């Protein structure tokens, strides 16, 4: 029995199905991200766990108890909002103590817990400030402390970093993750930023228009996407339509150029149309003699992206991006020249449409 179990949750607003048969079991202490484009139902799913929306059908169990229809203030769930949602009329300390004073805890206990939380987020100097006197990053840390002060069973974070600038976003996400690990708290983190999801999560749920596309560790999601959508949404990707040439040998052809894949194609017939995806960093110049997947390519363009150099190539009639790490000794080919490029069999992903 998992700690938080979301089973067959569906949510409709009027006639529109916003979340469709969502199923997820989360272990205690796990950090799970919901990743997907705007409007795919991430927030709605999170709000059902928080109790702000009631599912049209399905069940939510938290530590064995059915909380599907419980009021939000009866659940022991911490919520972090994109807009921080600190109470403007209260100081940092009062904000953090709010949940405990609502629970009628003693003054001493509240003061002690508030101190504990304030040192957890390193804002000792700001305890008596009002929210408008803090930066966005500080405000979000206060909101984290406020949510954690009540010892919630689950911590829910709805795009908590979206309103912050890039530097703070990266440092604060590391801080959130460190605090979550330290306290061993179960967390669900909503984001539309794939890098954020990859860097912070134990597991990622990729969502698309109300449906779960794929669930897996960041490693699995990035390296073994199972659908076109999750392959495209996470990382950059070359993708092309192709035709099965030899199912037994896992051979496919992209516009007549043959590639060998590691994916088992026995279920398909010769001539079947499939979608093939290859990550840019999996392509490289064929330096030594490799057996599989060495193809001719024309160099079309070269772009510096800092640590990575992106080379646009054309294989047959199909354009591909090829990424290689930048270094001062890198020898780059001339634009227009012909080179041999290669990729491993594992790099050639065959996806469901």
């Amino acid at each position, binding site marked *: 029995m998992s700690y938080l179990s979301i089973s067959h949750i569906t949510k409709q607003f009027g006639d529109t199905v916003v979340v469709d048969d969502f199923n997820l079991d989360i272990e205690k202490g796990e950090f799970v991200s919901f990743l997907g484009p705007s409007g795919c139902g991430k927030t709605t799913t999170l709000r059902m766990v928080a*109790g702000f929306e009631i599912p049209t059908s399905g069940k939510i169990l938290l530590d064995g108890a059915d909380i599907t229809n419980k009021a939000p203030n009866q659940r022991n769930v911490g919520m972090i909002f994109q807009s921080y949602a600190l109470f403007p009329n209260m100081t940092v300390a009062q904000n953090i103590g709010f949940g405990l004073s609502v629970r009628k805890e003693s003054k001493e206990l509240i003061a002690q817990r508030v101190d504990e939380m304030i040192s957890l987020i390193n804002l000792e100097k700001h305890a*008596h400030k009002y929210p408008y006197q803090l930066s966005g990053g500080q405000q979000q840390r206060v909101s984290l402390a406020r949510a954690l002060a009540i010892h919630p069973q689950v911590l829910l974070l709805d795009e908590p970093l979206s309103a912050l600038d890039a530097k703070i976003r990266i440092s604060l996400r590391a801080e959130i993750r460190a605090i979550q690990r330290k306290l061993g708290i179960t967390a669900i983190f909503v984001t539309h930023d794939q890098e954020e999801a990859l860097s912070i999560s134990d597991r990622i749920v990729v969502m698309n228009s109300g449906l779960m596309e794929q669930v897996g560790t960041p490693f699995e999601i990035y390296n073994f996407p199972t659908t076109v959508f999750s392959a495209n949404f996470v990382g950059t990707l070359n993708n092309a339509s192709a035709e099965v040439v030899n199912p037994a040998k896992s051979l496919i052809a992209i516009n007549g150029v043959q590639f060998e894949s590691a994916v088992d194609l026995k279920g398909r017939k010769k001539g079947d149309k499939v979608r093939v995806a290859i990550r840019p960093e999996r392509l490289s110049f064929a330096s030594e003699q490799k057996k599989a997947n060495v193809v001719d390519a024309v160099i079309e363009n070269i772009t510096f992206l800092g640590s990575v150099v992106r080379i646009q190539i054309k294989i047959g009639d199909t354009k591909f991006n090829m990424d290689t790490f930048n270094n001062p000794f890198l020898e780059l080919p001339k634009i227009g020249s012909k080179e041999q490029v290669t990729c491993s069999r594992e790099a050639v992903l065959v996806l469901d449409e």
Partner: protein
Amino acid sequence: MTNLPVPATVMVKRPATKNRLGSFLIFLVVSLYFLVPLAATFYWSLRGEKDVLGFEAYRKLFADTNFLPAFSESILNAVATIVLSLIIVVPTAYWVTLRLPKLRPIVEFITLLPFVIPAIVLVFGIIRLYSRPPLLLTATYDSSRFLLICVYVALSFPYMFRAVDNGLRAIDVRTLTEAAQSLGASWPTILFKVIFPNLRVALLSGALLTFAIVIGELTIALYMAQHTLGPYMANLTRSKVYEPSAMAIVAFAITWAAMGIIDFVGRGASRRAQMADTD
């Protein structure tokens, strides 16, 4: 003198102007426009005694046995109106913002009705409706007074709703409510600990606008035979020369004191915050 100056600009921030001289001129002209009549009234009010400038008119005004009862009755009416109006408007505006945003245009329209219906029409409609059973409220002075307060509550809606609505828009009501809920707060706790404190300035300005209307209201009070300040002033204007001016100055001073309170409360919040900043 039924229209006291209304502190409608209290919540409005003045935008930065490039042309300082231009804005100064405008300020000057507008100031003169307001100050000259005020100064003239004040001067007139000081001439209660022949050939001497002094406060004779004020003395007479406060010595008039009808003045203080009328004044205190109006103040009590105003306070009752404010309390009732707050009880009706705040939860309504809160709920509309939180749960029924689609109803907002309708509620806005309803609160604006007192602007559209002339007071005279309103008062005759009310007298007709409430002067026979089962809704007989015009029979005694006190029941009429109750009815009058109810009418004032309706008159206060445009100001009160707008003020509260502005206040609610300035804070993210929905998210704050949800944050409080997820921390375990119940509805009363949310209203009294989170919503009301953040609406303080808005509630106060709504209350003071209401106060200003009720204190000087003439038409309805007159037709409902109430001995409030409005009818008293009207009567005074007819029979006296200097006292009405003194009365106007007194009313004006009260309004300014009220605006001072808004300002003080508003600034109190930021001063407290500054103190927190320095320690």
